[in-house]
């Protein structure tokens, strides 16, 4: 056997694993995914299914959609759900003012012709859902906090996600030019229907482990020391284990890290008082504030070391 022979496992090593490719792209876009999320994103593309992200507030669910749009170089179209969200604000609406003006301008003309004219595309206002299926390049459609919308809206959404066409009574059926990549997020304030869950890929976004959170801090906060980033991440992880009413999210971690950098703290142990004073970035309710006393902060800092 010659020394130049290629090892048997060589080819397997060079096969590009799609989820790794996605992971590195997402990292470049500023979101550091774990393996499971990368897999879910890959499947989302290959099976063309929507992705349902669940998790506590502040774990970066919305950020996933933003980074995904960036990796594909497309637009992010966002639909924020709320109670009472209806079709006119989610799908389309007629531009009544312009229609009225048009009627005034054409007074005396043939009524049928006027009607034909005012119910044309020119007078149609696109809302997020309609906009998302009429893009030249397939966009990322983020349906944020779907659990806040009513069940009726959920049923309607399910229909849209199944066949990607919208029928407008005055205009006819509009079929999708491109199928958007759909990301749904839920905070779990209401149980979603089984049908919607079944259609979607599911990923539970947990708070990142200390290592990954440190990498997130490093990528987002310029000039931060790598050691401090890890300390910050570990500290936040410990605070989340304290039974707080509102656990700090990743955005809070970033705020806190930025505050520490701004105050030129190099090491958490150096200045426990400043560290405690900056806790306001992390702790957002009076009850939690009273629970995290300076002594608790000192104890946690001691654990970080």
């Amino acid at each position, binding site marked *: 056997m010659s020394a130049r022979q290629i090892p048997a496992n060589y080819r397997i090593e060079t096969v590009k694993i799609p*989820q790794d490719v996605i992971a590195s792209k997402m990292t470049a876009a500023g979101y550091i995914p774990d393996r499971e999320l990368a*897999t879910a994103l890959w499947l989302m593309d*290959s099976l*063309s*299914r929507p992705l349902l992200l669940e998790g506590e507030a502040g774990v970066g669910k919305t950020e996933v959609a933003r980074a995904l749009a960036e990796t594909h170089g497309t637009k992010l179209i966002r639909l924020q759900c709320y*109670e009472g969200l209806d079709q006119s604000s989610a799908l389309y609406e007629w531009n009544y003012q312009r229609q*009225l003006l048009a009627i005034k301008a054409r007074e005396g003309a043939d009524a049928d012709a006027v009607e034909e004219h005012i119910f044309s595309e020119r007078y149609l206002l696109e809302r997020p859902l309609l906009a998302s299926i009429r893009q030249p390049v397939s966009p990322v459609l983020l349906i944020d906090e779907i659990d806040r919308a009513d069940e009726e809206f959920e049923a309607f959404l399910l229909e849209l996600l199944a066949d990607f066409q919208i029928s407008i009574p005055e205009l006819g059926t509009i079929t999708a030019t491109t199928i958007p990549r759909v990301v749904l997020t839920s905070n779990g*304030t209401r149980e979603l229907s089984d049908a919607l869950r*079944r259609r979607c890929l*599911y990923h539970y976004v947990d708070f990142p482990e200390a290592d990954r959170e440190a990498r997130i801090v490093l990528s987002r906060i310029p000039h931060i020391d790598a050691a401090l980033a890890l300390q910050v991440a570990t500290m936040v992880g410990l605070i989340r284990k304290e039974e707080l009413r509102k656990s700090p999210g990743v955005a809070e971690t970033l705020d806190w890290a930025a505050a520490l950098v701004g105050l030129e703290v190099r090491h958490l142990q150096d200045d426990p008082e400043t560290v405690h004073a900056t806790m306001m970035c992390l702790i957002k309710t009076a009850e939690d504030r009273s629970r995290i006393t300076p002594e608790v902060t000192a104890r946690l800092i001691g654990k970080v070391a």
Partner: protein
Amino acid sequence: MRALRQSEGSLGASVRERLVAFVRVLRDNGLVIGLAETHDALLIMSEPGAARPHRLRVALRALFCNRRSDLQKFDDAFDAFWFTRNTRSVVKLAGVPTKAQAGQFAPRTGTSDQPGAGAPDPVQRGEGDDTSQGGRGTREGASHVENLAQIDFRHIVAPGDIAAAHGIAARLAKSMRARLTRRMRARRRGQILDLRRTIRSSVAHGGVPFQLAYRQRRHKPLRLVVLLDASGSMSLYSAIFLRFMHGVLDCFREAEAFVFHTKLVHVSPALRERDPQRAVERLTLIAQGTGGGTRIGESLATFNRWHAKRVIHSRTCVMIVSDGYDTGSTSQLADEMAALRRRCRRIAWLNPMIGWQDYAPEAAGMKAALPYVDLFAPAHNLASLQALEPYLARI
């Protein structure tokens, strides 16, 4: 993506069969999986991206799991099915009778602590006590059913009467639902023209009332969350309440049920079983679990921590059915009641003992909880259950 769609043919028939069997195991464990998902799973299996077991696991998990509680079930089933690891859990998985098993366990307690199946059934126990309570359940009268409604559940002992009482409890729950929701629907349709806003907006259109503004009261349907104490001291009552809960869950569009003794168990999925007898039987098995006191405070803590956010919205009535005998810490009970109070619209505490003569809420737990309770009502017979309806209608 299109390449993926073509490559499924490369899989052998045996792999397909294995996959179908795996999907069946998952379905038996309560995961909701359709044909389309199975088909997509085949596509995934023929991909290089899923060529290794751990990659396949992650990929199939994203596809098959629908909620957080599914994740652990999936992992267990995956190990058991493909690696024959955790042989013990294989046995358990095979023994799961229907998908109603889903969600019976308190979060994060794993699947190993299911109470023993040999626990006594309170209905049975009631029958055994026949001699001591001398058949007071069978009274003569013009309307036997009406009488039955007045009798304390403790004294309903004849098997026929028990069945009748259960039937009434179920029907009661049904009729409560019918009336409550009918009222809501009538309100929903009440669409009133908002004249003020219509005229205001017509100014912009030269006085033509073009945009009509409507006023419509949006009503969330009332959601009922029942927490039932199934400890030993309540055993004479829990069977009939379980039956009532079954009726409630069957009929209310939005209702959740929990059972607690030393820990809290979410029982809505099990209660949704069609056959009421079977549902109640299975539940009594769960409910009569570990014995050894009641930890109301701890159970409420579990509820607040894990379930409250999901099951409570602004129009929720939490109904706690308990006699208030708490073996846990009273201060914790008070804290958790306060936390619950902040969350929900109404707390009703039903105590079967109120119906007894000379009862005063002396139990320490009951005293601690009372300040946070909106309605403290008896629940010792069917009539007292019926009396709840007007209260619920007002919420």
